Structure formats: structure tokens, C-alpha cells
């Protein structure tokens, strides 16, 4: 019941937003919705509601992803208030409606126990995010939107084909042809292997495009780069997590069918490729938001590698989903502040932010350290766990490559982030702008960073359990 409430709440709020005539009042819907949604999710995570045979229900994975998404959304919602206050004269009906519907679609995706439903929800998120990316209404944002839309549509269509393939594989098993997850998992060993494999490839490519695994990630830098910081954070932290969930669902089926080996190799290949691409493109990256996008590619790679390696690394990957989401939130929101202050997101035009935007810039810097896996932030712990799994699995060469690429990415990102935060003071920018930091634009990232820091030091037992249970579903014995 609560679950349905969590699904319909955002849609109801969106409806109100459409009907509400005031551009000034409308933003207030966001934090209200977000907080109610989050409190619903908190209750949901406390009480397991997985029910066999229904379209909608929360298993451990879904609960976990839902928690991540809702938490991120709640934290970002206050930032949205500050954001719209800066753009008080802009028409925001479509944007806010999309923004409000967004968690609804993601909730459906997280709760979907049916591949078709999952697909519909993911497709819906694609379409909903398009107007949000286009919010700035200039040449760049239209280009980014176009690319995002087309590439993700292609990807999502491939995923559709993948679902059909898997369904057809099921027909061979003679079992129920339904795309209900628990039935599929039960009958997976009987599936036709060639169909299943081909289906998995389509699913992997399809949802991988959505998730942003290299070389399917090409829309990412454009979309993240042109979207408002808030949207970038939601996409990089929330939407990718949902896409990751979709991939995990297909992995679940493959594992149930006894096809671990292929899954692991393919995931490893894409994961390492993602790290390589990210490493190549963050070197001397002059655009801070595009840099964050490549960092997102990197972390998708890490997640996938974690799942591929298996064992304790799977747990690490689950932990990393949360860490990545929260940290990306910090980074995109603070990058948004910096962007707004300087009117640019080129590194050479945004230097010395620490003097003029002390909070945003220091949070940006801390977020950079966190995302690159520096202690005492939580990503350090999760990456550490993944590495531990790697060594436990005996992937010595892989781990050497992994560590090496992480170092390259650290250096590449640092080369951009440090000048932005600590570079020489730029006076001309100060005169040109009227943006000032307000509690609203700083509180959200601060909150998220505090969470990231706390998680690095102390992981609450319920969360740990949540990760463990989620990991159990997709864990392959190393």
C-alpha cells in the first residue's frame, strides 16, 4: 500500500504542478514531495514487502535502489528551491512537472517485478529527463538533448528487443511465458541458451547505454554538461542507479540460468573499457561538468566490475552505488553553483572559486577527493572493498590495471578541479555576476557530503544489511 503511495505521490504532485498557475509557488512542491516520498521509502525499507507473483514489489535490490534514489532526490530538492529562486523569471511549469514525475518513474522501475514494466519505467525516465536537460534553451542544450534522446532511445529499443529475446528463450523452456521476475528466475535453467545469451547482450547494450558504460556513454558528457547542475546530479546519481538495477535484473536471470561465466566476462570487458575511456577523457579535461560526466562513466565501470568480480566485491559495488549517487550529487550541485557564478564551466574561466565561493568550492574539492576514493569518505571504503574482492578472486593483473586507471583518473580530475578551486582569483568574473551563495544552494551538497563522510566512518547496521541482501541476489561466487 505504501509502495503505491510512493509511486502515485509524485504523479499527483506533478498534476498539481501543472495546474498551479504560480511560477513562484511551484518549486515548493519539490521539497514537500521529496520529503514525503523519502519518509514513505524509509518505512518501506524497514518493512519488506516483496510479494510473489505481483507486478510490483520490493525485493532487496529494488528496496536498496529506491532508497538511494529517494535519498538523493530528497537532498537535492532543497537545492532546487535555491535554483528556481535564481531563475525566478523563467517559466518552469514543464521543468518542475518533469522533475516531480521523475521520482515516480524511478520508483516504478525500482519496484518493478516485471521486465516489461521495468522497461517502460526506464523509458519514461528517458523521456522525462529530456525537457530537464533542455532547460537552458540554447544551442548547446538542444544539441545535448537531441543526442541524449536519440542515443538513449536506440539503447532502450535494444533493451526492448533483449526482453523479447529473453521471453522467447522462455518459450523454449516451455514454462510460463510471463516476464515476471521470480517466475523467470525459477524457470531460467530451462531457457534456450542462445536466445538467452543474445537477449542478455541486447539488454546489456540497451541498459548499458542508459547507464553510460563505455563505449555507449557518448551522450553523457553532452547531457551532463548542458543540463543544470541539479539535473546532472539526479541523472548521474539516480538514473544511472536505476539503469544499473535493470542490468542487475538481467544478470540475475543469467546467473539463474547458469551463465555466470559469460556475464562476468562481458561485464568485466565493458567495465574496464569504461575506466579506460574515462581515464583518457579526463586528462586535461577543461570543462568541469564534462569531467564529472566522465567520472560518472568511470564509476559505472567500477560498479560493473564489482559485480563481475563477485564475492565481497559485489557488496562493495552495492555500497558504491550509494556512495557514487551521493557524491555525484555534491559535485554536480556545487559545479552548478560555480557555473552560475562565473557564467562558464571552462576551467580557465572559473579559477579561484575558493576565495569567492568558499562553501561551494570547498565542497567541490571535498567531493572530488571523495569521488576519487580518498579517505575518510565512503567511496574509499567501497572501492577498497571491491579491490579486496578482486584480490580475493585472484585477479592480480586486473587489479593492477584497476588501480593504475584510478590513479590516472585522479590525476586527470585533479588537474582540472584544483585550479578551479584554488586557482588565481579572477576579478572580472566577480564584477560580472550577481550570484551569491545562499543557504539553499549550499545546504544540499553540504548535507550529502556529510552523509558521504559519515558513511565512510560509520555504516549503520540497517544499511549494511541492505547492501548485503542486495548483493546476495546478484552475487556470483568468485
Amino acid at each position: 500500500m505504501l509502495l503505491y503511495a510512493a509511486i502515485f505521490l509524485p504523479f499527483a504532485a506533478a498534476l498539481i504542478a501543472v495546474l498551479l498557475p504560480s511560477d513562484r509557488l511551484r518549486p515548493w512542491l519539490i521539497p514537500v514531495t521529496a520529503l514525503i516520498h523519502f519518509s514513505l521509502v524509509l518505512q518501506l525499507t524497514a518493512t519488506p514487502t516483496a510479494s510473489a507473483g505481483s507486478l510490483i514489489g520490493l525485493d532487496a535490490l529494488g528496496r536498496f535502489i529506491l532508497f538511494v534514489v529517494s535519498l538523493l532526490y530528497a537532498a537535492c530538492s532543497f537545492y532546487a528551491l535555491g535554483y528556481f529562486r535564481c531563475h525566478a523569471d523563467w517559466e518552469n511549469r514543464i521543468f518542475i512537472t518533469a522533475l516531480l514525475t521523475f521520482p515516480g518513474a524511478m520508483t516504478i522501475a525500482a519496484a518493478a517485478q516485471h521486465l516489461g514494466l521495468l522497461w517502460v519505467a526506464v523509458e519514461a525516465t528517458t523521456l522525462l529527463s529530456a525537457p530537464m536537460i533542455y532547460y537552458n534553451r540554447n544551442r548547446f542544450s538542444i544539441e545535448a538533448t537531441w543526442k541524449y534522446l536519440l542515443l538513449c532511445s536506440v539503447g532502450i529499443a535494444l533493451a526492448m528487443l533483449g526482453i523479447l529475446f529473453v521471453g522467447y528463450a522462455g518459450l523454449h523452456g516451455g514454462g510460463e511465458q510471463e516476464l515476471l521476475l521470480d517466475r523467470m528466475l525459477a524457470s531460467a535453467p530451462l531457457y534456450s541458451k542462445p536466445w538467452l545469451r543474445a537477449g542478455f547482450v541486447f539488454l546489456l547494450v540497451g541498459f548499458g547505454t542508459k547507464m553510460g558504460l563505455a563505449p555507449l556513454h557518448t551522450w553523457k558528457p553532452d547531457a551532463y554538461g548542458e543540463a543544470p547542475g541539479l539535473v546532472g546530479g539526479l541523472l548521474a546519481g539516480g538514473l544511472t542507479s536505476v539503469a544499473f538495477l535493470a542490468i542487475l535484473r538481467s544478470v540475475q536471470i543469467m546467473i539463474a540460468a547458469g551463465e555466470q561465466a559469460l556475464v562476468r566476462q562481458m561485464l568485466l570487458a565493458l567495465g574496464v573499457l569504461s575506466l579506460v575511456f574515462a581515464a583518457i577523457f579526463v586528462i586535461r579535461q577543461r570543462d568541469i561538468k564534462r569531467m564529472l560526466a566522465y567520472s560518472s562513466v568511470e564509476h559505472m565501470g567500477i560498479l560493473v566490475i564489482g559485480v563481475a568480480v563477485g564475492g565481497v566485491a559485489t557488496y562493495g559495488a552495492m555500497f558504491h552505488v550509494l556512495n557514487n549517487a551521493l557524491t555525484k550529487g555534491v559535485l554536480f550541485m556545487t559545479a552548478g553553483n560555480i557555473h552560475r557564478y562565473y557564467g562558464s564551466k571552462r576551467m580557465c574561466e572559473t579559477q579561484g572559486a575558493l576565495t569567492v565561493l568558499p562553501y561551494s568550492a570547498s565542497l567541490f574539492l571535498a567531493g572530488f577527493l571523495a569521488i576519487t576514493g580518498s579517505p575518510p569518505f565512503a567511496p574509499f571504503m567501497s572501492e577498497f572493498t571491491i579491490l579486496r574482492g578482486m584480490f580475493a578472486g585472484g585477479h592480480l593483473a586486473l587489479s593492477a590495471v584497476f588501480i593504475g586507471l584510478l590513479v590516472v583518473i585522479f590525476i586527470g580530475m585533479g588537474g582540472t578541479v584544483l585550479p578551479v578551486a584554488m586557482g588565481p582569483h579572477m576579478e572580472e568574473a566577480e564584477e560580472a555576476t550577481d550570484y551569491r551563495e545562499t543557504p539553499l544552494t549550499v545546504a544540499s551538497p553540504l548535507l550529502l557530503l556529510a552523509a558521504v563522510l559519515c558513511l565512510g566512518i560509520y555504516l549503520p547496521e540497517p544499511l549494511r544489511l541492505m547492501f548485503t541482501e542486495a548483493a546476495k541476489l546478484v552475487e556470483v561466487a568468485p
Partner: protein
Amino acid sequence: MNTPPNLILLFVILFNFFILGTSRLATCIRSVALQGALLSLLPLFLHTSTFHTYLLAGGAFILKGLLMPWLLFRAIRQVRIRREVEPRIGYIPTLLLGALTTAGAFIFGDRLPLLPAHLHSLFIPAALATLAAGFLMLITRRKAITQVLGYLMFENGIFIFGTLLAEAMPFMVEMGVLLDMLVAIFVMGIVMNHINREFSTLNTEQLSLLRE
């Protein structure tokens, strides 16, 4: 081999080549629409006549055969373009590539075991070939509108395969497919409109400001 579905599928494959080889936008749109309309007949031949089947066929016909071409024609009227000038890869090579991918589709299709009911049907190769043709359109053409057409062919390919499973799949998913396609085309149409306003062209070559 001579069953009606196979005949339809053969035509669909021929349409693929035709679309890949033509330069006139209006012809392209018509052909894609015709291809869609042909495909919408498939469920009727394949499945027993239920409400569900009719709905699927009717919905597909309306969407693919009527609504989509209407939207696209409106779009090209607005921007006043007639033909795809200078595709990235010429028409003849594209056709050759199309032949190659179609052959690949047949070969790959052979490796996938079919249910007894579907033996000797062209469903799998036709679906994959149409998919690949859609990909080729997306890769070789420069105009936003032809890229949308490519995407539509892509969807057509999936639809071919989907009809095989139409019975097995719950109703809502199927509607989801169609609905999503509608919305996707709709959103793409809006975006195309904006592109045209911003760049006063639908040539996507212009859309490469965001790069490394």
C-alpha cells in the same frame, strides 16, 4: 515459405533496401509508413483473432501508418527540405552494407533455435535485418529527420519480433511499446522543431558543437 507472414516479411526486407537507397525524403517517409502498415498486418496472420490481436494490429496501423507520417510530413513542410543531400556514406555503399547486414541477420538467425511453430519463418532474420537497416540509416544520414526515420525502422524491426510474442506478453507491455514509440516520436518532433528554430536547419552536422 509461401505463407502470408513470410511474404509480408519479404516485402519488409525489400522496403529496407528501398529506403536505404532513396534520397527523396517524402518517399522515405512514405516507405517507412508503408513498411509499418504492412507490419501491422502480421499479428492478424499469426495469432487467433481476439480483441487483443485486433487492438495490436489496429494500434500499430494507426501509429505507424498514419500518425507517424503525418507528424513527419508536417515537420518537413515546416523546414522545407526535400531530399537528403550528401549522406555520410553514399547510397550504393549503404545498399551494399545493407545487403551485408541482411546476410548477417540470416546467418545469426540460423544459430538461434526456433520453436516448432515458427520454423521456416522469416521472422528472426527480417527483424534483425530491419534493425540493422535502421542502424545504417542512423549512422549514414545527416538530417535529423532521416535519423528519426532510422529510429522508426529500428522500432519496426523490434515490432516484427514482438509479434511473435504478442500472445505471451501481457497487454500492458505491448501498449507500452506503442505508447513509448508515440511519445518518443512526439518528443523527438518537438526537439526537431527546436533544433530548426535554433539552427534554422535540420542538418545534424551542425549539431557537433559539443565535442572533445
